[in-house]
């Protein structure tokens, strides 16, 4: 007898075995393994490719248990609480999975109540769900935070048996993941012995996710691991454009016709780009060549929700030929019809690329097909490195990070809202969550102190405390308003302020439909009359009325305001080392397009190539200025930070830097002093210039003034509940006299630089917008390995970075210099008129 078959019958009871058979399916090995793990009471991580029946695998043990329970119900009453909780990063995914789950449940006649709970669920149903919970509830991390902070959490979750965490790789490692991990820690308290199941795409380090699934305070340290059989290997290629491959830029205009030909030749194509603006530009360009009037749509996060839903619906019905999209479609509902993924621009990381490739073809036995379209020469190298990584199944390493303190502050307040807590117990509970396993008691106490009275050294707010200790030492909320405020503030997603874009006629300036939303900071750069691309059209900016940007259509074809052209995601460390290895090994260049090959040959001839582990630095004069170009390959963010720090140092050394440009691969600093000469004369020591000690005082001094740091602080302040979120409708009154968090930041860093919220903001800066940790790793790596070459002119490899659009100017106090410049310009303009007048008078 087939032993596998024997297992199967033992694991898969009726009516499940019959249901599988009736559909002509056999349960997959990993589905059975999860049933076995569930019987043993083991929490488990399942790693499976898309199309492998991952979600059903996660739910089968619950369905089997619930079916058995229903049969027994006649002699024992049904437990009143939830049986299984499913948590997904996407609201839409939760709704979709619920639908997919109801079908087998109905077909097998299982008396199981399956419900969803999201921000869209009507209040009446949410209330009923708390009173009379379903068997299976599908929801999001934010809803979990709200539910465990309510008084009836014990009733709701006391009988919880299983928790299914979908797309766990997309949640872990983010602030949303931090919040969810703390929620899990509480759920384990409410329902001791609850089993967790993590569902994940392939990741480089499954152990972190496995630790997520079990409390970090005892045995075992990790959940079990089940790896599903891999699907067919993807068919992956790089588009080798016949046209000239540009030196710089991100639009891939040169490959437009070829991309269009791919769309024509396939049933449904998903065209991924890295930024919203790239999506806008490419969509527009595609329609310009769309002679066959193919249904090509656009999808990105700032389009109006109803518009996005229409695109998704049309996609589901197979009505579209292609969708140009951003990471807004990285995750989500399966669309069977997609048979090709085109990734325009560099993929930036192999894991993201694999996720995107998986969006094509959800049948396991057929290969997914994807084409990479590099937009410039460096991206050719990056795409090549990514192809090799995907073929080898290699993933980006996870960035090591600790649970965020601002998220912890939110959670601590939530726990006080649920019921009074004892600090020792809560500390033990919090440190059982993977991201907070290393949290020190001192940091925890600081967070509790922050939640209570702001945590300031100046004890000014004792009487305004939000939580207070009772006589028994347990902390409770000071009044019901605090709990009310908490509920409004739950969540870790802090949208940058968005403004609606409304299409109006240039004359009336009223009415018209809403096209979507743009970030406030983008609008801040516009002056009336400027043109820019949005929602696939070139628009003319008219004015801002209330919280809306009024725009009109224009016949202009070239937008005047260049939208931010760079990639949103920095190049991953893993791909960066792949690119460096490729560059350092001319034997492998044969796989590169001819133009790119020639480019590298020329670099070898004129200068030299960056090595695998060294740092190449070129210095050369050009156009009356002197340049220093370094090739760290550490991503734009780290390079920008490096640029700020190096120019500060050069300025102090009297070498008069004027500014710098950065891209994902290189950094170019320009100025008036001859740097080649300064190095030759020993006035500039490159080893000292690149010494890691720049990350000390220089960094602190610069960070304090940095706009990025202020934005980071604002996010922390909102998440931690220091300031309230801005709500629609409430904003109008607030706008009259707006008080910005920048003012709070300035006061706090002067008077209490060690405050817990500033620590949280600095920790974010280290891994987030400024990528300081990566910079510091690089500085250590290249220490003593700087290869300098003085050139007479610009090198071929330096050209791309010299063509970067966004240049940063150096200024001790940047805004002062800008204001002075603007004032001088106006004076020049004004006096020029006078001069003309006087000339005529003469």
């Amino acid at each position, binding site marked *: 007898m087939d032993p596998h078959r024997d297992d199967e019958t033992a694991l898969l009871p009726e009516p499940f075995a019959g249901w599988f058979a009736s559909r002509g399916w056999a349960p997959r090995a990993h589905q059975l393994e999860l049933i076995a793990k569930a019987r043993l009471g083991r929490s488990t991580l399942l790693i499976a490719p898309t199309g492998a029946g991952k979600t059903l695998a996660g739910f089968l043990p619950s369905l089997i248990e619930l079916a058995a329970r229903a049969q027994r119900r006649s002699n024992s009453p049904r437990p009143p609480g939830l049986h299984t909780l499913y948590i997904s990063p996407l609201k839409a995914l939760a709704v979709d999975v619920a639908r997919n789950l109801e079908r087998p449940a109905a077909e097998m006649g299982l008396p199981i109540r399956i419900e969803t709970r999201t921000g869209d669920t009507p209040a009446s149903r949410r209330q009923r769900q708390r009173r009379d919970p379903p068997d299976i509830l599908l929801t999001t991390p934010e809803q979990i935070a709200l539910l465990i902070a309510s008084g009836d959490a014990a009733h709701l979750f006391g009988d919880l048996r299983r928790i299914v965490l979908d797309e766990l790789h997309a949640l872990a490692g983010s602030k949303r993941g931090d919040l969810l991990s703390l929620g899990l820690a509480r759920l384990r308290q409410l329902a001791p012995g609850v089993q967790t199941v993590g569902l994940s795409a392939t990741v480089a380090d499954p152990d972190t996710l496995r630790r997520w699934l079990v409390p970090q305070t005892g045995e075992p340290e990790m959940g079990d691991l089940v790896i599903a059989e891999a699907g067919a290997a993807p068919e992956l290629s790089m588009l080798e454009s016949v046209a000239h491959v540009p030196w710089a830029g991100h639009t891939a205009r040169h490959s437009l016709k070829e991309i269009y030909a791919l769309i024509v030749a396939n049933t449904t194509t998903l065209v991924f780009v890295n930024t919203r603006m790239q999506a806008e530009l490419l969509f527009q360009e595609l329609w310009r060549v769309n002679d066959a009037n193919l249904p090509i749509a656009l999808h990105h996060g700032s389009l109006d929700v109803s518009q996005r839903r229409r695109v998704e619906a049309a996609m589901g019905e197979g009505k579209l030929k292609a969708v140009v999209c951003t990471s807004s479609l990285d995750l989500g509902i399966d669309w069977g019809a997609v048979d090709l993924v085109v990734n325009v621009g560099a993929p930036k990381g192999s894991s993201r690329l694999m996720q995107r490739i998986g969006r094509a073809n959800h049948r396991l036995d057929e290969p997914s097909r994807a084409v990479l379209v590099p937009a410039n020469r460096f991206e050719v190298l990056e795409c090549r490195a990514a192809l090799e990584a995907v073929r080898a199944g290699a993933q980006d390493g996870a960035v090591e990070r600790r649970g965020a303190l601002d998220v912890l502050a939110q959670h601590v307040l939530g726990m006080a809202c649920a019921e009074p807590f004892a600090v020792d117990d809560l500390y033990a509970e919090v440190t059982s969550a993977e991201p907070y396993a290393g949290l020190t008691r001192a940091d925890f106490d600081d967070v509790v102190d922050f939640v209570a009275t702001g945590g300031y050294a100046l004890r000014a707010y004792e009487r305004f405390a939000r939580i207070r200790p009772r006589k028994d030492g347990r902390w409770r909320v000071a009044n019901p308003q605090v709990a009310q*405020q908490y509920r409004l503030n739950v969540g870790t997603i802090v949208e940058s302020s968005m403004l609606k874009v409304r299409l109006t006629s240039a004359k009336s300036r009223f009415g018209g439909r809403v096209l979507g939303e743009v970030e406030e900071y983008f609008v801040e750069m516009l002056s009336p009359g400027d043109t820019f691309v949005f929602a696939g059209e070139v628009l003319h900016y008219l004015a801002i009325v209330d919280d809306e940007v009024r725009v009109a259509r224009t016949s202009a074809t070239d937008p005047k305001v260049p939208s931010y052209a760079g990639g949103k995601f920095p190049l991953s460390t893993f791909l960066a080392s792949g690119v460096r290895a490729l560059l350092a090994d001319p034997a492998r260049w044969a796989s590169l397009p001819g133009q790119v090959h020639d480019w590298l040959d020329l670099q070898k001839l004129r200068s030299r190539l960056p090595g695998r582990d060294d740092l190449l630095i070129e210095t050369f004069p050009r156009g009356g200025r002197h340049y220093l170009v370094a090739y760290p390959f550490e991503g734009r963010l780290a390079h920008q930070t490096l640029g700020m720090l190096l120019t500060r140092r050069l300025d102090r050394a009297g070498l008069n830097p004027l500014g710098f440009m950065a891209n994902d691969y290189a950094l170019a600093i320009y100025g008036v002093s001859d740097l080649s000469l300064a190095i030759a004369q020993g006035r500039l020591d490159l080893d000292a210039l690149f010494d890691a000690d720049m990350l000390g005082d220089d960094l602190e001094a610069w960070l304090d003034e940095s706009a990025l740091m202020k934005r980071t602080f604002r996010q922390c302040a909102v998440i931690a509940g220091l300031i309230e979120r801005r709500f629609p409708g409430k904003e109008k009154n607030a706008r009259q006299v707006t008080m910005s968090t920048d003012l709070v930041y300035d006061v706090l860093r*002067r008077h209490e630089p060690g405050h817990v919220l500033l620590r949280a903001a600095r920790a974010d800066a280290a891994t987030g917008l400024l990528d300081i940790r990566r910079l510091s790793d690089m500085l250590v790596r290249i220490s003593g390995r700087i290869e300098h070459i003085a050139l007479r002119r610009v090198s071929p490899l330096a050209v791309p970075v010299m063509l970067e659009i966004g240049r940063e100017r150096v200024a001790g*106090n940047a805004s002062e210099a800008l204001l002075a410049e603007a004032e001088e310009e106006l004076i020049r303009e004004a006096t020029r008129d006078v001069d003309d007048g006087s000339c005529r008078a003469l």
Partner: protein
Amino acid sequence: MTSTTVRAVRYDIERQGEGGFPLAGTRFVLDPAGALYWPAERLIIVADLHLEKGSAMAARGALLPPYDSRATLAVLAQIVDRWRPRAVVSLGDSFHDRRGAERLGGEERGALARLLRGREMIWVAGNHDPDPMPGLGGSHVNELTIGPITLRHEPQAGDSEGEIAGHLHPVARLVVRGQSLRRRCFATDGKRLVMPALGAYAGGLNVRDPAIEGLFAGAFAAHLAGGARIYRFAHHACLPDH
């Protein structure tokens, strides 16, 4: 403030020179920290200190850093140190609310007393602090007229030559090289003037808002403060907010 900034401020003040800044025929000097100096009267004018705004917000549940009053007073101390005036006029909303003066901490009270030692202090009534504040010294007035100049909290509608007021917290917004800059400013047409707010937590209202534009019959200028020097821009060069 760094020594470079101190030098720059001194230079800027010298640059305004003997002519100073004329308002209704009277000579003033604009201090880049956001104050107005009246040389003939040896008088410093500041507006909208909004002391104890932090604790007022804390009482409503937003536990902002409780250091705003000392930050504001530190700026005021620098201004007083620079000019050594005979008197200081605070143009109303000196405190964020009626109970603000009661909440002022010991250290802040000391700082205030030190900077006012040997000078006259005049508290003009504001809408946030309409009544005299006990225990702070100085005199409390609704408004003050000295020669052609009238000092009051809220600017009066219509032609009001010689009026110096606060209340509106003017800020100017400029876009330079793709960067948006927003800064507190004096708004003036040479006849009347609206002072920038000095309070560390005081927000701002764009000079292009009708509430400010409407005060001036024609063109006016924004003199940007809060940095190393004053920058002057015509009002139409400043961008509206949203």
